[in-house]
């Protein structure tokens, strides 16, 4: 399935970002409406900071940034309500010790009634064939299972967009493939930050970050080729 919005889902103009008084993003100008956008770049190139802007975890120091039409300057709550974030390490993301309780937690924050919460948790776990983990302790899960639970806890809140920050880095090949096919099957807008270039082959657009700037913005094939040449120097 492909999804493309008439209105830009990402609309950044002249965005600059400082972290600890150090510039990490410079003059980002971007308009995007594609279903799946990949982000690559060397360590410290600013791609993770950019991803954090998309969920309102960071806000621009200068410039204007709109995500799904919500301006980060005055609608951070709306941005967070509509943009889910999956972190590299699911252990940082899962806050309750029991699987079902953790997935239910976000729904509780949205004031979903208890009986509906239980049904939604079972529905999302069943969707990924994880219903047997419902009452399992998080500590007893494998890395792949934890990442799927972290994704389920985001998806259950029905966001319009999901940002993934290197979701396969800590996984073995089987779990990496499972997460990859899950991402490709998502109906939501997807922004994926990764070093795993193969993951992006079927994406609609890939941005390459270099020293806090968008250095290349193209189809996956062209952008990855540019990045590989850059890294070879």
């Amino acid at each position: 399935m492909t999804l493309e919005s008439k209105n830009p889902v990402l609309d950044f103009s002249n965005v600059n970002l400082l972290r600890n008084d150090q510039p990490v993003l410079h003059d980002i100008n971007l308009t995007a409406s594609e279903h799946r956008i990949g982000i690559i770049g060397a360590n410290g190139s600013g791609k993770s900071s950019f991803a954090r802007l998309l969920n309102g975890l960071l806000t621009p120091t200068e410039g204007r940034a709109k995500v799904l039409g919500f301006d980060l300057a005055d609608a951070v709550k709306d941005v967070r309500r509509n943009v889910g974030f999956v972190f590299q390490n699911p252990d940082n993301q899962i806050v309750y010790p029991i699987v079902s309780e953790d997935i239910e937690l976000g729904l509780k924050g949205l004031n979903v009634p208890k009986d509906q919460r239980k049904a939604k948790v079972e529905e999302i776990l069943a969707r990924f064939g994880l219903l047997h983990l419902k009452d399992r302790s998080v500590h007893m899960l494998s890395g792949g299972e934890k990442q799927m639970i972290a994704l389920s806890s985001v998806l259950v809140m029905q966001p319009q967009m999901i940002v993934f920050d290197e979701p396969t880095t800590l996984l073995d090949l089987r779990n990496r493939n499972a997460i990859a096919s899950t991402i490709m099957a998502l109906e939501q807008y997807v922004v994926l930050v990764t070093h795993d270039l193969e993951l992006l082959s079927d994406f609609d657009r890939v941005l390459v970050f270099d020293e806090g700037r968008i250095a290349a913005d193209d189809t996956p094939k062209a952008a990855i080729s540019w990045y590989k040449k850059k890294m070879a120097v």
Partner: protein
Amino acid sequence: MVQKEDGGLMDLSFYLPGSSVLHRMPTWSKFFLLISFSIIFYAIEDLRILAVILVAAIALVVYVKVPVRRLKAMFLLPLFMVLLFSIFSAFVNDLNAGLLTFFRLTSLVIMAACVTVTTRIEDFMAFVENLLLPLSFIPFIKPKTVSLTLSLTLRFIPEIFKLGMDIKEAQAARGLNSNPLALIVPLIVLTLKRADDISDAIDARMLD
């Protein structure tokens, strides 16, 4: 928190899924009964009645179907403490007082364990939240924050323990196994970094 023989970590959540009467009882009623029993037991001076209560408490464990392995993890330390208190009481007072202490405390420990294994963390947190609600007019008491902090504690103590084991192993590989600073400094730094990441995740999930 205990490290298992296979190197995995035993979690601090003792909840056991089930459909017993205790599982279905509202959390507040279980805690109300537990507190009531603790008052009533101290009013009973007859050893025979307390012995019957202890047998009933053990029957409750069987009814709730707590696995033997879980029993060991849950009871070993508390029962050791009960034994110490009882011996102390017997020395300070007399044998009868020691036995009364042993029967009362053992029954209570067993009943409290039954409440723990039949109460989901989420329900317990909701109970804590409701309990603190009347105090929420005090500026620094935020019931939701308190319950989230408690759940984070239960969730992350085993993780920090695992982090400590990993650091210990890495330092031992470098020949630094007898240097406590080699464990403590990276553990503090990594735990603070972890806290930062968890704080981001809490913000991203709109739990703040």
